[in-house]
């Protein structure tokens, strides 16, 4: 019976820890299928980071993606050249989109080092989540949750050995 209680507590702890652990910023589809993230400030971050800093990060990311997906002179040139070479050119050269993605990774790393890590947060590059979300993770809570989980598990295994007479 106590095992069930432990399990229940563990699941609750894991549930609440996982939610407190990660905040997800979803995509904003009001401009169509272009990659853009919502700039609405999540309530879970109110005590963790200033609103303006967060909004600046998301807006800069949105600008990067807009630049990558911009349909203009350079993209037409790239497209026509690619068509003439039966798109084999994509195997040889790095496309503009890939170059912008590298800039985005660099920007996120820089933001993590300068802005978010000092506040105990970590941003994950959206490309690692299939461009669905920008996930913000709390650095300290993840360590505490792991410790709690190990101690609960240890208590459970010792209890299971003791109970059968």
């Amino acid at each position, binding site marked *: *019976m106590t*095992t*069930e209680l*432990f*399990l229940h507590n*563990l699941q609750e702890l894991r*549930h609440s820890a*996982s*939610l407190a*652990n*990660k905040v*997800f910023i979803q*995509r904003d*589809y*009001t*401009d*169509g*299928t272009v990659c853009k993230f919502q700039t609405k400030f999540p309530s879970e971050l109110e005590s963790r980071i200033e609103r303006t800093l967060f909004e600046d990060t998301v807006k800069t990311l949105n600008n990067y993606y807009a630049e*990558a*997906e*911009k*349909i203009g002179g350079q*993209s*037409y040139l*790239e*497209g*026509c050249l*690619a*068509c003439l070479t*039966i*798109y*084999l050119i*994509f195997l040889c050269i790095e*496309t*503009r*989109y*890939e170059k912008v*993605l590298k800039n985005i990774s660099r920007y996120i790393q820089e933001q993590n080092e300068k802005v978010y890590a000092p506040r105990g947060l970590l941003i994950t590059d959206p*490309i*690692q*989540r*299939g*461009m*669905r*979300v920008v*996930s913000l993770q709390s650095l300290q809570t993840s360590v505490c949750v*792991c410790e709690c*989980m190990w101690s609960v*598990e240890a208590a*459970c*295994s010792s*209890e*299971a050995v003791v*109970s*059968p*007479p």
Partner: protein
Amino acid sequence: MKNREYQQIDPQALATPPPRPLPEHMPKRVRRKWEVFPGKNRFCCDGRMIVARQSGVLPLTLGLILLTSGLFFIFDCPFLVKHLTSCIPAIGGVLFVFVIISLLQTSFTDPGILPRATPEEAADIEKQIDNPTGSSSSYRPPPRTKEVVINQQVVKLKYCFTCKIFRPPRTSHCSLCDNCVERFDHHCPWVGNCVGKRNYRFFYTFIVSLSFLTAFIFGCVTTHLALRSQGGNGLVFALQASPASALELVVCFFSVWSILGLSGFHTYLVAANLTTNEDIKGSWSGKSGNEDIGNPYSYNSIIKNCCSVLCGPMPPSLIDRRGFVPSDDSVQTSPVEIELPAAKNDRNMVGRAVTSGRRPPPSPPVVTLQQPAISIQSHSTA
């Protein structure tokens, strides 16, 4: 009585298989992400190429193209070069290369598969859905749609229960590949893959160049037979002299109409910035009588639509096929999940082991069998 029945089970039978080591103790070789990909796809060259599991008719497509073109170059070209011009095999060669390369690119490129949501993301979405109502007393399945306004049009985003995400606009779940694909056009059995955002331009190049190639071969073969049957020889003589041409004629005649038709249809779709899926469903055609519906993704200019679809930037593949599966996540979560239910199983094994279908944990069988009987008795009386 129950105790005795269970004691009669031969402990040797249970002890014979060596205890299955728990995953975190086994030295695992590092796997690439394509090896654990949940969709129904097959991968070649260590994850560099992706194709649907049922690549069914692709060999037939490739075979027909190679056969017809091969016969053309071997049997018709020499005659035509001698009597007309040597440009004919050159043009034929260029078209043939275009067709084969674009076919292979369509078949082996990731069409724009969306990776499935991580468990934390799925939990976050469910939490957001449950929160507004605030009641969790009765089970209510999560709502399946979310509305968003794009270009003054209301677009419904559906929730995909397989991928556990709200599908972005123009994304659809392919049941054959078991993946959500961005800007899903259709699943083409002839190329053995879905046609979506990333490989639509390859597909379009393929069908356009194939229609040119088919029409070209048809024209050349007809000219060849016409030239041969000149001088009172007749068509029968011409066919006897060059039987391969008859086969080419038949193949080209039957395929040129369908391929030309398909090319024309897709040219219309490109000009209107529509997908086959949207066109078939009539999403934006206002068939229901609502005149306010129009395609929110169209730029209202044929040239701009064509350029954005065919010459737009090439988006990256979102499924990281050749990346390595991180082993630290499985180590952190699996010990807790495996060991605790096993402890629970120990106590309830007598009552439910047979029906639950779970394997008993690899502990000494004699001890395992005796103890639960006693604990069940105390459990029932408690």
